[in-house]
């Protein structure tokens, strides 16, 4: 069933694919070849199985024509053209081998090797070196040129980057790394310094990599044909034996990766060229920061304890599962069936999430199941569901290649979704126009070879005001796509919406005092979005994590409909989802009111189908959402929680409230790979398994279902899905699955939008975008073509209501939160990798004016207080925010970023308002009271973890 092991070495066709309606036929070395017009001779030859020697060419980069190794002869033409830069033409007769070509190539190779160390046997790339291969291919036997002082054989290595080494002595100056940094990653951190013989690859201004703009994506390392740029893990472990294709477990881009393996040890993760979400690119997290999976902090044995102040007792799996099950049953016996619930994980697979919600609904017998999407994209599900009929983005990532105008709202793709950020930057370099709506000057505002046309730097919490103002301009200036609206949308709802947005209070001028954005800029940006061609909207948590998060999503959906930007390539509404499987966890029925496929629990037909498949009656009343669980815990009616792979203590807002709720539980079962912040309040700890230790699927932000493949046995003995099965069995609701594929088969049977999905299909296609059913047997890359899923698109009125979280003399600044490139979410993974070299603490970004008012200098310790609590961080004085706005990340538990955030939340979905908290910032000298408590509690919990002599053996 699984894909066979692959060779770690990809086939390289030399130059990128060219798409053309026209085909040309030619002869290469006597073989007839037909290729699309524009295809290089090198690629045409490779497609027929002939390999022309090459060094500077690779099929991920545009041809460059510098190495002079790929020369060929063409009948009727003089000279020896480079096959990488020469397009195939009709009727050409090409020779790739001749005596003269052999002499030329050998001569070129001799020059290369004259300045290259001959240490192949001890070289890290031995066995994976194109230079070595080419020396063999051209038959190099001697180098007549002596080593001279200008040579680079003694050049110093740069090992400043934690993940790879740059050894200039091995560089052949083929420029592939420089081009990869430019064409693929779009950072332009590398160049060639100098000229002639002295030219060398230079990061930044001939600096170490870590001092340059390098973002450690690894594209240069992938591109390098020698050992000049090589992973430290390969230096240490040697070349991999085989590779297994799997999917990254970090953000919602869902990059395809090859796990390069030696036995059951991962020696490298390389981006998979066949991965449709990433097309062979990666970022620092997926490419390099996988060491957490085998980190010594992993907890590999089940543990139980009666009270959270007791030492942990190491027990067998069976005892832990039995204990957890008996506690849940005891609690239900005492407090009622609804006194327990579960939280599913956006880090786990679809199959595991499906089982977790199934266990809650079937074994617990209630609908008290929720997921971390509650705190991120639940408004997306609501807003897009109401307006379009599906709770997901409308496009593929590749669609951005057809966009003329890109509107980014409340998202920071180059940090949070870096691989998509690179694809987006590529389109900007090709000339697409860019509008950014964000309180911060994110990196996409300006960078090498791109600059946003408009940055609408609004006050946090005024999203809806600005989207209404944009809609006002489009409607009042006659920019409505009438044909689209008339044929595709519900006209009654459109008329009502139109009457609403044209009201003067929605004009950019009227909203200017609210948003802080000059009306002229709003008008110009609105015109550009409406008239600039294919316009696509990409948005992130800056849209959803507000009191009006759902309203804003609806506002975005309205905007795309009124301009006709739905249902074709290059347009659409695209939520950038945070975690690897947050889309999937929502799809799999993790919400208390929805079965898999977003069908309400009160819908009789749906419920009956699950009842008959699962063999028991199910409840038709929605269960508790996460915030309701906390409230119910505090009022005593909710006493037991099964929490799989989510750190609610660190990630949910108003930490002290969360802690109070969890502390009141009688049984908290945490299933995770680490003793995370939540586990410190747990009574049962069940070891989780990393993405390398299980089979399954993840679904990314473009609805793409991709396989996760097991490359090593679970370190704790059980995959996460096996743990849920065991717990369900112990609760008296038996589950029988021998492989996750059987779980997917059940999902497909019970969920119409997944009815065509199977592991066989995924192995065949690589990945598939839902809906995948009889009508779309190979999935649906583009949604809402021809008509909306709900039929007619529904306009909805989006009245701007200011948030309750207002600045006051006591709390005069607005805090907004986010994440940065090298750390991920609560940091449980990335903090346990060398990514700490890039970002080792959360800092509070504060504008120079606000800093000066408070006597704060860069690096000072500052107290941040809100009506929820206070914490202490170091200040980073920065002009990224407007005056009056401060910003921080939440990657480190000791920062207590969420001690400050409040329990304000979205009116429709309870998604917390992380993005707006009124705060005061002052210089301080010591930790906050909460931080002191956290430090003491953490020390105590670490102490309770250390096994005493009597606890060494499982009882």
């Amino acid at each position, binding site marked *: 069933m699984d894909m066979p092991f692959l060779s770690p070495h990809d086939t390289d066709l030399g130059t990128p694919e060219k798409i053309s309606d026209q085909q040309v036929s030619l002869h290469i070395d006597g073989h007839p070849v037909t290729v699309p017009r524009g295809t290089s001779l090198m690629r045409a030859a490779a497609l027929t199985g002939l390999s022309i020697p090459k060094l500077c060419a690779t099929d991920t980069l545009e041809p460059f*024509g510098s190495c*002079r190794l790929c020369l060929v002869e063409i009948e009727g033409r003089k000279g020896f053209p480079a096959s990488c830069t020469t397009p195939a033409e009709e009727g050409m007769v090409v020779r790739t081998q001749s005596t003269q070509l052999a002499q030329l190539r050998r001569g070129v190779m001799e*020059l290369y090797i004259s300045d290259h160390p001959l240490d192949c046997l001890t070289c890290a790339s031995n066995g994976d070196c194109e230079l070595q291969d080419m020396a063999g291919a051209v038959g190099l036997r001697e180098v007549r040129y002596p080593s001279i002082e200008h040579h680079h054989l003694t050049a110093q290595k740069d090992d400043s980057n934690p993940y790879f080494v740059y050894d200039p002595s091995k560089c052949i100056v083929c420029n592939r790394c420089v081009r990869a940094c430019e064409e693929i990653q779009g950072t332009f951190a590398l*160049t060639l*310094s100098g000229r002639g013989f002295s030219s060398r690859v*230079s990061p930044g201004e*001939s600096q170490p990599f870590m001092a340059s*703009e390098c973002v450690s994506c690894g594209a240069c390392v992938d591109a390098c044909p020698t050992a000049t740029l090589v992973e430290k893990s390969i230096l240490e472990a040697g070349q991999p034996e085989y590779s297994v294709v799997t999917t990254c477990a970090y953000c919602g881009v869902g990059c395809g990766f090859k796990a390069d393996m030696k036995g059951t040890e991962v020696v490298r993760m390389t981006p998979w060229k066949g991965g449709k979400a990433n097309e062979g690119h990666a970022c620092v997290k997926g490419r390099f920061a996988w060491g957490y999976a085998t980190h010594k902090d992993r907890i590999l044995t089940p543990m139980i304890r009666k009270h959270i102040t007791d030492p942990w007792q190491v027990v067998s799996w069976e005892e832990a599962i039995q204990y957890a099950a008996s506690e849940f049953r005891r609690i239900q016996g005492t407090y009622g069936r609804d006194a327990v619930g579960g939280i599913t994980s956006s880090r786990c697979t679809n199959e595991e999430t499906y089982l977790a919600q199934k266990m809650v609904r079937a074994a617990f017998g209630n609908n008290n199941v929720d997921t971390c999407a509650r705190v991120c994209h639940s408004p997306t599900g609501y807003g897009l569901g109401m307006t379009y009929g599906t709770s997901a983005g409308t496009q593929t990532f590749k669609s951005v290649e057809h966009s003329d105008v890109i509107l980014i709202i409340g998202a920071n793709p180059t940090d949070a979704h870096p691989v998509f950020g690179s694809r987006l930057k590529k389109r900007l370099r090709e000339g697409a126009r860019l509008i950014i709506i964000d309180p911060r000057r994110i990196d996409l505002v300006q960078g090498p070879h791109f*600059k946003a046309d408009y940055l609408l730097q609004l006050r946090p919490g005024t999203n809806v005001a600005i989207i209404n103002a944009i809609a006002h301009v489009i409607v009042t200036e006659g920019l409505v796509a009438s044909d689209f609206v008339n044929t595709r949308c519900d006209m009654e709802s459109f008329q009502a919406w139109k009457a609403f947005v044209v009201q003067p209070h929605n004009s950019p001028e009227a909203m200017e005092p609210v948003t802080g954005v000059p009306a002229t800029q709003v008008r110009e940006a609105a015109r550009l979005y409406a008239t600039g061609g294919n316009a696509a909207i990409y948005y992130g948590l800056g849209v959803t994590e507000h009191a009006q998060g759902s309203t804003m999503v609806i506002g975005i959906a309205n905007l795309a409909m009124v301009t006709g930007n739905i249902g074709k390539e290059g347009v659409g509404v695209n939520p950038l989802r945070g975690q690897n499987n947050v889309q999937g966890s929502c799809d799999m029925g993790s919400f208390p009111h929805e079965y898999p496929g977003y069908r309400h629990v009160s819908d009789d037909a749906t419920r009956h189908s699950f009842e008959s498949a699962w063999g028991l009656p199910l409840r038709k009343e929605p269960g508790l959402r996460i915030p309701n669980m906390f409230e119910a815990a505090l009022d005593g009616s909710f006493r037991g929680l099964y929490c799989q792979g989510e750190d609610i203590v660190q990630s949910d807002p108003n930490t002290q409230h969360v802690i109070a709720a969890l502390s009141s539980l009688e049984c908290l079962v945490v299933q995770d790979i680490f003793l995370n912040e939540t586990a410190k309040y747990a009574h049962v700890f069940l070891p989780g398994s990393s993405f390398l230790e299980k089979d399954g699927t993840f679904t990314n932000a473009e609805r793409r279902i991709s396989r996760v493949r097991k490359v090593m046995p679970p370190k704790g003995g059980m995959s996460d899905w096996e743990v849920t099965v065991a717990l369900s069995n112990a609760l008296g609701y038996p589950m029988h699955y021998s492989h996750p594929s059987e779980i997917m088969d059940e999902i497909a049977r019970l969920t119409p939008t997944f009815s065509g999905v199977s592991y066989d299909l995924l192995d065949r296609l690589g990945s598939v975008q839902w809906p995948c059913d009889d009508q779309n047997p190979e999935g649906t890359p583009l949604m809402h073509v021809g008509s909306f899923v709900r039929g007619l698109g529904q306009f909805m009125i989006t009245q701007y209501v200011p948030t309750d979280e207002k600045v006051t003399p006591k709390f005069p600044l607005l805090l907004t939160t986010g994440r940065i490139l090298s750390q991920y979410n609560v940091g449980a993974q990335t903090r346990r990798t060398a990514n700490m070299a890039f970002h080792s603490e959360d800092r509070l970004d504060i504008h120079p004016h606000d800093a000066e008012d408070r006597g704060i200098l860069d690096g000072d310790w500052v107290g941040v207080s809100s009506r929820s609590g206070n914490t202490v961080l170091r200040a980073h004085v920065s002009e990224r925010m407007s005056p009056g706005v401060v910003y921080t990340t939440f990657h480190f538990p000791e920062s207590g970023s969420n001690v400050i955030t409040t329990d304000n939340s979205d009116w429709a979905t309870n998604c917390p308002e992380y993005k707006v908290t009124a705060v005061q910032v002052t210089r301080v000298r010591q930790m906050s009271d909460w931080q002191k408590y956290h430090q003491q509690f953490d020390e105590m919990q670490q102490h309770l973890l250390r096994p005493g002599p009597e606890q060494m053996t499982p009882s």
Partner: protein
Amino acid sequence: MIKINQFCFCSISYVVHSCNLKYQNMKNTQNSLPPPSLPEQEGRVVQQSIDQWMSAEGPLLPILHHIQDHLGYIPPASIELIAHQLNLSRAEVHGVVTYYPHFRREKPALRQIVVCQAEACQARGARELTRTIESRTGCRLGQHSPDGQWCLESVYCLGLCASGPAVAINGCLHARVDHDRLNELLSPGDLA
């Protein structure tokens, strides 16, 4: 040395053309410049150079020339300023600056002597002339003199092949530089 020169040209022309094309689209986003760590006077010259040439096609080379003409070198701290305002990376500007030997990255000495080392001047005694200058100034070719007064650089052709050997002192050309002429040129105070 096939492997070297070609791609340098490629990358430079890419930089020069694309930065100009991109610049046309930009408006309305206020730049907050990275704080330049340049001395005030140098910073002013750099900013003037950028302002003067930014809207030209392929502005990078004219800007670099303008800076060097006024400051005698390209201050390393100016790279970030130029890169930011031209929407280039520091690496790209660095690549162009280091590609051309004409651009200096260090403050030049008070007197900069450039001696032609090309064939016609060699035939007219440029090698001997170079040695003489080295011994007179205490400054080796490609270096600064220990007292910081002189720097001696080579060039391949000043366009005076018919009247070699040729030198340029502080940018001023001198032909047929024989022993006497050299004495005049190197005399204190004569900075041409």
